[in-house]
C-alpha cells in the first residue's frame, strides 16, 4: 500500500500536491474547489493590506511550454481576504496556507498579523514577486532575515518564505531565513521574463515584464530546491513547472517535502487526480511505500 501523505510544520497532507499561490485567485470558493479536486493543501493568492487592482491586461499569456504573467498582486485587501479564508477553514480540513505580500517589514508584519485571524495552517511570505517595480524583496539577504525575525516575534502560526531562483544565492538566503526562525521555505516563484509580439512590435504584457512559469522552468526549480536542501534542514515546498507525477518525484528527490503546482491545473483536466496516480505509478514501479522513500541513492 503506497502512502502519499506527508506531514510538516504541524500540517497533515493527504498527498504532497499543494495548490500554488496565485492560482485560482483569492476567492474562498475557488480554493475549496481545489481542495475538493484533491489538493493536499491549498495556498491563497497573496494579499496585501489594501486592495490592489494589479496591472492592466494583458496580464497572463499562455505559450506551449510556459506561461508568463504580470497580474501584479491584484487582491481585495486583507480584510476581505480574512473572510474568504475563514470560509475555507470552516468548510475543509485540507491545510490552508495564506500568502501575504507587502513592501516593507512593518507592513509585512501587519498583514501577517491580520491574516492570522483567519487561522491558516501556515503563512507564506511572498518576498519574490517579479512583477513589481524595483528589486526583489528576497534579493536582500539581511532584509529577509530581519523580516522573518520580526514576523516570528508576533506570530505563532508556522511561517514559510517564498524565494526566487532569480537570486543567485537562493541557498544562502534560505539559510538566513531558517536561522531567523523560518519554519519552511517555498521555492520557486516565477522567474523574471518578457514576451514580445514581433508582429505587433510590442511587449505583450502591459507591465512589460512578468514572471515565467510552466514546464519550461522545472529544471531551474529543481536546481534551486536542491541548493536550498544543501543549506537547510527545514521543510521545503518545491514548485516550478511540475506537470506530472514524475516531475513531482524529481522535485521531491531534489529535496522538497511537498510539491506546489499551478500552471498544470488548467492544462490538464482533473490534474490533482492525475498527478497523484502518476506519482503512485512511479512509486510502485520503484518499490517505494512512502514519500520519504523518494530520494537520491
Amino acid at each position, binding site marked *: 500500500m503506497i502512502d502519499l501523505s506527508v506531514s510538516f510544520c504541524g500540517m497533515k497532507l493527504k498527498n504532497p500536491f499543494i495548490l500554488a499561490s496565485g492560482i485560482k485567485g483569492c476567492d474562498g470558493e475557488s480554493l475549496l474547489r481545489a481542495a475538493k479536486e484533491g489538493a493536499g493543501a491549498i495556498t491563497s493568492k497573496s494579499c496585501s493590506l489594501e486592495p490592489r487592482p494589479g496591472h492592466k*491586461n494583458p496580464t*497572463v499569456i*499562455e505559450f506551449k511550454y510556459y506561461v508568463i504573467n504580470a497580474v501584479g498582486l491584484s487582491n481585495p485587501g486583507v480584510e476581505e481576504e480574512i473572510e474568504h479564508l475563514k470560509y475555507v477553514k470552516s468548510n475543509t480540513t485540507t491545510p490552508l496556507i495564506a500568502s501575504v505580500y507587502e513592501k516593507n517589514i512593518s507592513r509585512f508584519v501587519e498583514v501577517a498579523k491580520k491574516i492570522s485571524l483567519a487561522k491558516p495552517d501556515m503563512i507564506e511570505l511572498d518576498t519574490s514577486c517579479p512583477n513589481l517595480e524595483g528589486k526583489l524583496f528576497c534579493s536582500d539577504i539581511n532584509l529577509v532575515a530581519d523580516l522573518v525575525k520580526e514576523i516570528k516575534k508576533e506570530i505563532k502560526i508556522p511561517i514559510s518564505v517564498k524565494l526566487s531562483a532569480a537570486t543567485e544565492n537562493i541557498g544562502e538566503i534560505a539559510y538566513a531565513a531558517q536561522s531567523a526562525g523560518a519554519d519552511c521555505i517555498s521555492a520557486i516563484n516565477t522567474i523574471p521574463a518578457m514576451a514580445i509580439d514581433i508582429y505587433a512590435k510590442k511587449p505583450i504584457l502591459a507591465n512589460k515584464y512578468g514572471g515565467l512559469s510552466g514546464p519550461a522552468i522545472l529544471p531551474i526549480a529543481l536546481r534551486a530546491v536542491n541548493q536550498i536542501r544543501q543549506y537547510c534542514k527545514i521543510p521545503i515546498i518545491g514548485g516550478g513547472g511540475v506537470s506530472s507525477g514524475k516531475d513531482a518525484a524529481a522535485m521531491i528527490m531534489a529535496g522538497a517535502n511537498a510539491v506546489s503546482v499551478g500552471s498544470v491545473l488548467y492544462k490538464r483536466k482533473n490534474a490533482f487526480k492525475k498527478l497523484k496516480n502518476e506519482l503512485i505509478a512511479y512509486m510502485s514501479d520503484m518499490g517505494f511505500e512512502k514519500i520519504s522513500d523518494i530520494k537520491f541513492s
Partner: protein
Amino acid sequence: MNTPYKKIKIVDKKQETDIVSYFVFDKKINAKPGQFIMLWLAGEDEKPFSVANANPLELAIAAIGPTTNNICKLEKGAELFYRGPYGKAYSLMGKKWLVVGGGYGFAPLRFLIKEGLKKNRNAKIDCVIGAKTKNLLMQEVKHKNIKTYYTTDDGSFGIKGNVLAAVEPLLEKNNYDCIYCCGPEKMMYQIALLGEKKSIPTQISIERYYKCGFGLCGHCSVNGWLSCKDGPVIFGSDALKLKDFGFYYKDKTGAKKQI
C-alpha cells in the same frame, strides 16, 4: 518568438447603435456562438468580446470605457490582435427557441440564431430585443422563421418596459425547447427564474473581469465557477445555484461589489 495573438485588420465598420460599433475583420475564426476572444489593442489594454460572427470574424463593441472608446475610434484598415477563442458556447437544443437579448448582449445571440438556422432549417424562433431606449436597440435577424419583438425601457420603440414585458406573455402562449439569453445580469437572473418556473432549459452567459481567459488566474470565479473556462455560457438552473449570480461581481482587485 511565437505569439499567442493573431493579427486582424478592420475591413468594414458601421455604427450599430449609439454606443455599439460593428466591426468586420479580414480573417475567419474557428469559434462557436457564446465563445469569446481577448482583443488586444497593442500597447494599451486587452478586453474580452463575444464573437458576433465567425466567418469572417465580426465583433460588436460597445464604447463603455477608455479602451473600448479607443477601439471604437479605429477605422477601416486598422490592425488589432486577438487570442482565443475561449470558453463554452451555447448548445443547440430542440427547434423552438426563445432568444432574449438585452442591449449589446444580443450580439452573440444573433450569431447563435444564424448558426442555429444553418443546422436546423425548420427551427422556429421568437426573438426579444430590448434596450433602454430606441437608439440602443440592436438589429434583428430577418428570416421567415423568426418573429422579433422589441422592448424599450422608455417606450421609445416597441413594447414599453424591459424584456420581461415581451417574454412573459410569450411564455404564457408558447412552449419552447430552450431559452437563450444574454444581457445585463439582473435581466438574465429574471429570465433564469422564469425558465425554472416554466421548466424550460435556459442558457445564459455570465461575464466577469477576465485576466487570463483560460482558467488559470481564478479572477472570474463566481462562487468557484470560472466564467472564462466553465462558462461564460451556463444553464440558468446551474447559475441560480451560484449565490453571487445576479447580485455580486468582482472588481479588478477581486473585491466583491454589488451588481
